[in-house]
Each structure stands twice: as C-alpha cells, then as structure tokens.
C-alpha cells in the first residue's frame, strides 16, 4: 500500500478554512508536486500559481508548515518528514483565492523604492550612446551589486518580515535589496532620488534587523545586509550633503 501524506490546504480568501487531502507519497516529491496532485486529481477548483518548476520564476512561494518558502524546490522529505503538511498562502499579501496572493503591493513597492535602473547619461560609465560600460568584475561596488542581484521576486522575504506585517507602508526586504543593488551600480544616475525614496519612515530605517528575510530567502541572498548598506549610504549622504 502506498504511504499517504496528510495535507491541509487553505481554501478561501481572507476568510476561509483548511481542507484536508490525502496525497500518495512519492520519492523525490516536492511540495509543488503535492499541490499539483490535489488540483489535478482531487479538486480542480484549487487555485495556486507556478510556472518554471525549477526555482527561477519566483511564482510558487507559499507558507508551508508555518514557514514561507518556494514550493518547487522544497522536497516533502525535508520540509515535512512526518508526512503532515499545512499549506497556506504567503503572509502579508492579500489573498486572491486559496494559495494565490495579490503581488501588486509587493511590486509597487519595488517601484517606490526606485527599483528601476536609470542610466547616468553622459557619464563614461553609463554605456549609453557610446561603448559598453566597463565595470571591473572585482571592483567593490560590482561585488556589492552582485551580492544582491539574484532576486527572483518570489515574496518569501516579504512574507517572513514582521515589520512588513506591522507597518503596511514598509517597502520590505526585496524592494530595498533591489535599491541597494542599484545604489552600487556605477552606471546608474538616480542615486540621489533613490536614497531619498528609501530613507523615509517606511524605508530602510524601519528595519529591525530580525533577519527573517535572510533566514528564509531561497536564493540565499542577504536583504538585511543590503538594508544595513542603505542605512549607511543614506545616513552618510545626509551628513555630508553629497549622495
């Protein structure tokens, strides 16, 4: 007889309830496999989101046994050795239905944190209208930008963050991490505006360094370090009057 997993899945919106499903346990099974089994074999009305299945697109993040994580690369054997799974939508974001959350606020905050690259026109490093920008891979700024750049926008850090839960306006670890990556980009020309955007009450100074973001990031990025960098950069800019 096949061993069965006990899976409890959130059904509904902000109001709703857990529904239990029995899913056959398989070898090398991921949490996403479990949810897909439920949706294809047991209840076609279950809503959830995924695309690439290989940890690149950042769309399948959920709360699994109380922890925010990506589900496509989360083996059931590691996440729930007991065979009991509780699956909920990501915290701190509005639930659309079941396991799908509305990511609008999350990405709007990236825009508010100055998350878009603005080329420094006319500067030799800009790489616009001339040759490619020459940025030495070993330079300090390049390495700092590199450390923050692999974000897939899955929202796990945002769901893990208590400050984001306490202060609805808080830009959040992902948006601030993105801003830090651009602050270190020598080709960028919007440093002043970006530092102003992230220095407010809902910006980097709201962070309590609880490091939930760093603890849970599936890409092993360190938004806490990025936010600390922003605190230093913006405080320095304020003290010296120079961005």
């Amino acid at each position, binding site marked *: 007889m096949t061993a069965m997993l006990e899976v409890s899945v959130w059904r509904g919106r902000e109001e709703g309830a857990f529904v239990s499903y029995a899913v056959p346990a398989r070898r090398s099974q991921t949490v996403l496999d479990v949810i897909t089994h439920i949706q294809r074999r047991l209840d076609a009305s279950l809503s959830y989101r995924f695309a690439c299945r290989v940890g690149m697109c950042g769309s399948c993040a959920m*709360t699994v046994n109380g*922890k925010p994580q990506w589900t496509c690369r989360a083996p059931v054997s590691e996440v729930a050795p007991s065979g009991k799974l509780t699956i909920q939508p990501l*915290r701190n974001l509005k639930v659309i239905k079941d396991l799908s959350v509305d990511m609008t606020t999350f990405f709007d905050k990236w825009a508010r944190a100055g998350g878009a690259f603005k080329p420094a026109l006319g500067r030799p490093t800009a790489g616009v209208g001339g040759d490619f920008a020459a940025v030495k891979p070993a330079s300090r700024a390049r390495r700092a930008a590199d450390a923050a750049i692999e974000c897939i926008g899955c929202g796990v850090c945002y769901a893990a963050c*208590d400050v984001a839960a306490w202060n609805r306006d808080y830009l959040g670890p992902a948006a601030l991490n993105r801003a830090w990556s651009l602050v270190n980009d020598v080709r960028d020309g919007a440093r002043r505006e970006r530092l102003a955007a992230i220095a407010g009450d809902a910006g980097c100074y709201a962070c309590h*360094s*609880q*490091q939930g973001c760093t603890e849970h990031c599936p890409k092993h990025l360190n938004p806490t370090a990025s936010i*600390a960098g922003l605190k230093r950069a913006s405080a320095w800019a304020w003290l010296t009057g120079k961005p």
Partner: protein
Amino acid sequence: MMKGHRDHPAYWAFAVHRLSGLVLALFLPVHFYFLGRAIKGAAALDGVIAWTDNPLAKVAEAGLVILLTAHLTGGVRLLAVEFLPWRDWQKTLIVLTGGLSLGAGLLFLINAV
C-alpha cells in the same frame, strides 16, 4: 509556540533585546523612586538597602544584571550589524551576547553570596 517564520536565532535576539528593554524601562522608575528617598534622609534609603540583602532580592538583582548586559551586548551587536561591513558570524555574535549576559549574572550572584 513561536510562529514558524520567527523560529531562528536573529529573531530570538531581537525578542530578547526588545523584552529586556521594556522590563528595564519598567524598572527604572522604581529604581529612581528608591534612590529619591535619600533626599528624605539616610535612614529611608538605608531601609531599602537593608531590604535588598534578602536572598530573593539578590536573585532578582542578578536577573536585572542579566537584562542589562543582554540589552547592552544586544545593542552592540545591532550596531555591528548596521555599521560594520557584513560579517557571516552573526550567529556567533548572538551566542556571545547571550553568554556574556548569563556570565555577568553569575558573577554578580557569586559576589553577592
């Protein structure tokens, strides 16, 4: 039970720092109130000081010493996180703050006995 997303050392460190800060803030008015009694004469203050010689008060004082060190070392840890370039030994720092706090409390108790 602590919620899953909070179950990691940096969050515990945050919680200890916040709680120790709150308890110390509550203790300070009491501390100043008793110190203030000195204004009314040495006898009033001496009465309080004599009372603190009982073992229960000593244990409570050791608790205060632990809270004070925990808050101090926790604050230094936060300053290190925010002002120094990132170090990967954050968890070691957290353990150090806990060890120093408990050590200080123990030293106080040894001296008190």
